[in-house]
């Protein structure tokens, strides 16, 4: 055994080096976020649950009931019922439901949506859901537009 190896063995050098690393890390800024008191900031592209939106200018519903999002959804959680418009042009929604229980947040439903300039269905930043039964996860058309009400439990 060489001198260096011997010293290393006796002086526990590698141990002290490790301790030094942990000590150094004590003084780094904390990165833990104290959820739910604070929340992290999301990237603009963050994919929460999918929701519907209205035209920001006219306030009209954007969705034209083309059923493309229903067709591409891999978990088949979107179900749309549409009927012919009374004036004979195109279709309009009767109901639009997304079962959030099955949704896997993949964002595929947004890709084919044809409405311009923004897509009618979009990935929102909502993520806080808790419910006591399965029905709590089925979002109706109104809830998809206005957001599902979140119940805040306090002590």
């Amino acid at each position: 055994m060489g001198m260096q190896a011997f010293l290393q063995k006796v002086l526990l050098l590698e141990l002290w080096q490790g301790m030094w690393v942990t000590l150094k890390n004590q003084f780094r800024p904390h990165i833990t976020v104290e959820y739910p008191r604070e929340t992290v900031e999301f990237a603009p592209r963050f994919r929460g649950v999918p929701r519907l939106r209205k035209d920001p200018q006219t306030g009209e519903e954007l969705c034209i009931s083309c059923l493309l999002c229903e067709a591409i959804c891999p978990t088949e959680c979107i179900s749309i019922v549409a009927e012919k418009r009374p004036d004979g042009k195109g279709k309009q929604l009767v109901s639009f439901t997304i079962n959030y229980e099955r949704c896997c947040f993949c964002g595929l439903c947004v890709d084919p949506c044809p409405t311009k300039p923004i897509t009618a269905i979009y990935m929102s930043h909502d993520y806080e859901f808790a419910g006591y039964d399965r029905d709590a996860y089925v979002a109706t058309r109104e809830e998809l537009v206005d957001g599902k009400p979140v119940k805040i439990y306090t002590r």
Partner: protein
Amino acid sequence: MFRTEMMDINMGPQHPSTHGVLRLKLVLDGETVNDTDVLIGYLHRGVEKLCETKNYHMIEPYTDRLDYVAAMYENLGYVETVEKLMGITVPERAEYIRVLTAELQRIASHLVWLGTHALDIGAMTVFFYCFREREIILDLFEAFCGARLTYNAYRIGGLPWDIPPGWIDRVRHFVKIFPGRQKEYETLLTKNRIWLGRTKGVGILKSEDAIDFGVTGPCLRASGVDYDIRRAHPYSVYDRFLFDIPTGENCDTYDRYLVRMEEMRQSLRILQQALDHLPAGGVMAKVPKRIKPPVGEVYHTVEGPRGELGFYIVSQGDDKPYRMRFRSPSFVNLQALPHMVKGALVADVVAVIGTLDIVLGDVDR
């Protein structure tokens, strides 16, 4: 008067160090493992069959859920397989961004491995540091594709989005700070006598055994076999980058640790080169709305963080695959486990499971 008896012990499926729902039936002679029976299937979801009922767009989110620690590679392998079948050329910029995200994913996946492996062996500190750095990568992925674990980040023919503004600088920043952080992990582990004692000479897998078992990835390279798909069968734009393929000599757990540490450094090298040569242009090729590959079959592999990740698709000209098969590295590597722990102590089984770096979602599919 005295006699000894073999004892059957179940390790798992809820054992914290089996990294998921893996059940091992150990036949023990005292503390020594005499025989091991690996029982899997607790996480079987039938994805391969399920894919036969979905069209080509819908399958990608399902691939995310195979190896959820390195979902970028599952996405990459899948879309490249379909592109190969259809003969689509992906824009160069998209290829570079794919390489960037994939190499970041390799580092993130190796960080999970290092953290949990060290945690299993008893070094808790490394776990926190590794996950701190992994968080930076996950933030980058969130900015790029919107998700942190199941990305669904590529599309057949390219990418759904270009990278967001400022992203490149954030990756550069990561490439700059990471070597220092990696040095810290190495200070904690590489010469630590407990770490050496727990990993040196444990779980030896000779190169010819590794080849016989079909082991790939870092486990194979640590056994001294210089085989990396990025070099052997280059895909994407990997033939343009300079990087080394680290190999081990002693075929033990410690060498596998060294190989993976070196791989992270090589990934940083690739990242640096990809950042410097990122071309401008579009990110999506022209592809039909309905993906209908021609009749035929295709097998394509990518080098995932765990080894050779293969996709086999049989197409009959429909918009759904006729047969879909995943060659998952975790499943194949796991076969070597009984061989590696034969004659070892029970505590070494934990080390060997850690060093094989299995993901049970990938094993059971």
